[in-house]
């Protein structure tokens, strides 16, 4: 029982960290490659999550749809929806200093959150969208495993079947049938996101983006369409954030506007990217896992202070991460895994 709980927690931990890693990769395309500031990550994340939820849930009277479509279509829809929002915001702000983009993203995230709360026909408002199906959850059941065990030599098969039928087996199955599949799905999509972003980084397009970041006028003088390249990067990054949203929705099975506050959706992702090393995809991954580990570890504050002080403990945790961000920016702005050729910014 003990280690089944630990296993469940481990699976849960890596799954959430993986979703954050996808978000961080998306932000890396925007900030790391191109120097764009997006303070509305939570908004793009939410658009992806709700799009996928509406596409994949069974028909419901409480919100738009659902359309009962397969999970991959949910992910694709989420990416397209987030990309569309990004096109609109980007079109308005790409010609201007990045401060304006930053302010505009704050605005769009806030408006998305208001809409999620108020447009009940679309999102069921504050009550949220329940019963979002887990991807491929029916694949790993007792019969499947028993079938697999049949491939083993007889004495071993008997032992495995015995274990599977016992209480330990039930616990293992419970983990395997749901969370483990989700974990695999998240890791597969993380690998996909990584592959896209890394390909983009080493491509000629990626080099143009870095050149824009270092010397915008020079790139413009070389005849490149700076605004267009920047917009492409912003849209790609936002689409990846939308993908993370779909993964999240189908992993937790229930979403409501509360899940998309700037604190979790935006702030933590920024800390992850800065801590890992902006511009570097490995850095983005490392940052996501390390900061998620740290954030989870600060949970002990809540436990130590007791339920009575739960809100204070929560605030204290956020404060610690906020201070950590400043310390990193001042002492190690290049992050844990610095981008090649970019030393500390001092």
């Amino acid at each position, binding site marked *: 029982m003990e280690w089944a709980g630990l296993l469940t927690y481990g699976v849960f931990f890596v799954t959430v960290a993986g979703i954050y890693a996808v978000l961080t990769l998306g932000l890396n395309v925007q900030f790391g490659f191109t*120097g764009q*500031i997006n*303070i509305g990550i939570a908004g793009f994340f939410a658009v992806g999550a709700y799009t996928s939820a509406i596409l994949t849930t069974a028909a419901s009277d409480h919100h738009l749809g659902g359309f009962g479509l397969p999970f991959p279509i949910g992910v694709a829809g989420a990416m397209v929806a987030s990309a569309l929002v990004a096109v609109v915001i980007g079109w*308005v*702000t790409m*010609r*201007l200093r*990045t*401060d*304006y983009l*930053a*302010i*505009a993203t*704050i*605005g*769009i995230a*806030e*408006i998305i959150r*208001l809409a999620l*709360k*108020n447009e009940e026909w679309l999102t069921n408002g504050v009550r949220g969208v329940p019963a979002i199906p887990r991807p491929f959850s029916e694949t790993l059941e007792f019969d499947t495993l028993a079938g697999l065990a049949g491939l083993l030599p007889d004495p071993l098969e008997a032992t495995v079947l015995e274990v599977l039928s016992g209480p330990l087996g039930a616990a293992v199955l419970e983990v395997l049938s749901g969370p483990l599949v989700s974990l695999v799905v998240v890791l597969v999509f993380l690998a996909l996101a990584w592959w896209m972003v890394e390909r983009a980084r080493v491509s000629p397009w990626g080099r143009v983006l870095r050149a824009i970041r270092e010397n915008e006028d020079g790139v413009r003088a070389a005849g490149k369409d700076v605004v267009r390249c920047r917009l492409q990067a912003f849209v790609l990054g936002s689409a990846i954030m939308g993908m993370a949203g779909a993964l999240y929705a189908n992993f937790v099975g229930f979403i409501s506007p509360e899940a998309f506050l*700037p*604190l979790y959706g935006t*702030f933590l992702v*920024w*800390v992850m990217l*800065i801590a890992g090393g902006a511009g570097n995809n490995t850095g983005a991954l490392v940052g996501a896992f390390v900061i998620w580990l740290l954030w989870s570890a600060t949970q002990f504050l809540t436990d130590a202070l007791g339920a009575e002080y739960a*809100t*204070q403990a*929560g*605030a*204290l945790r*956020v*404060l610690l*991460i*906020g*201070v950590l*961000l*400043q310390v990193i*920016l*001042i002492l190690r*702005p290049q992050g844990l895994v610095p981008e090649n050729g970019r030393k500390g*910014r*001092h």
Partner: protein
Amino acid sequence: MLMDFLQVGLYGVVLGSILTLGAIGVSLIYGILRFAHFAHGDLMALGAYFALSLVVGLGFPVWASAPFAIVAAALAAIAIDQIVYRRLRRVEPVILLISSFGIAIALRSIIQLVWGPHNQVYVKGIQMPWRVGDLIVKPDHVWIVLGAVVLVIALHLFLTRTKTGKAMRAMSDNMDLALVSGIPAERVIMATWAVGGGLAAVAGIFLAMDTRLHPVMGWSVLLPVFAAAILGGIGRPYGAIAGGMVIGMAMELSTMIIDPTYKPAVAFGLMVLMLIVRPQGLFKGNA
């Protein structure tokens, strides 16, 4: 109908006064330090809570606690600048932007830790409104508008009559020339934070008088404050006055047509419109 319009317009002036005080600070800081200060809303909230401590703890009336809150918020702004932003000044301004976002989150946590996560008010109970014809005027609204007018005049005098105020304008105009003229940049930057922080405290107190105190109050008002600053041409404190009034008025008047929850969307829409049509703001400056 006309009465409704006037009544809502009055709310617009009240909200406009609050936004103006916040937007002036944002604009001053942008003009001199060249970054959008995302912790400004939370600085406003901090100022409002400083006042709450005096109101609740020592039984001060709100107006008497304001001066202490102003000083405390100004000191807090200077401290944040000295401890954090100052060390990042030689780096690209975008890093300051991210840093200030982190400070915003940290300030909000501090507010939650010290004052708790719940809604609070300065004075319990309902204020007896005055009736002017068919208009309903709350005394608090009068104080807010008058307070904003007095502060704007004081700021104008400061910027045009005092050496430090003129140096702030000079640095905003042409930082390099200010430096080669021997203007002590760091001292003027401190003064800028003091003014910006002090005005933010008043804006926060006014906002709390008009609505209530809540840890997220500052973050919620950040978007309209920036919309006001951008409308007036960010970096130009005088533009922020017009920008604040336009945004405040538009947000309140829109409630006659659309769901009031979408008030921030109106500010956002105006801001986006401005960015498309005239990114330099309502008043073309020296650019």
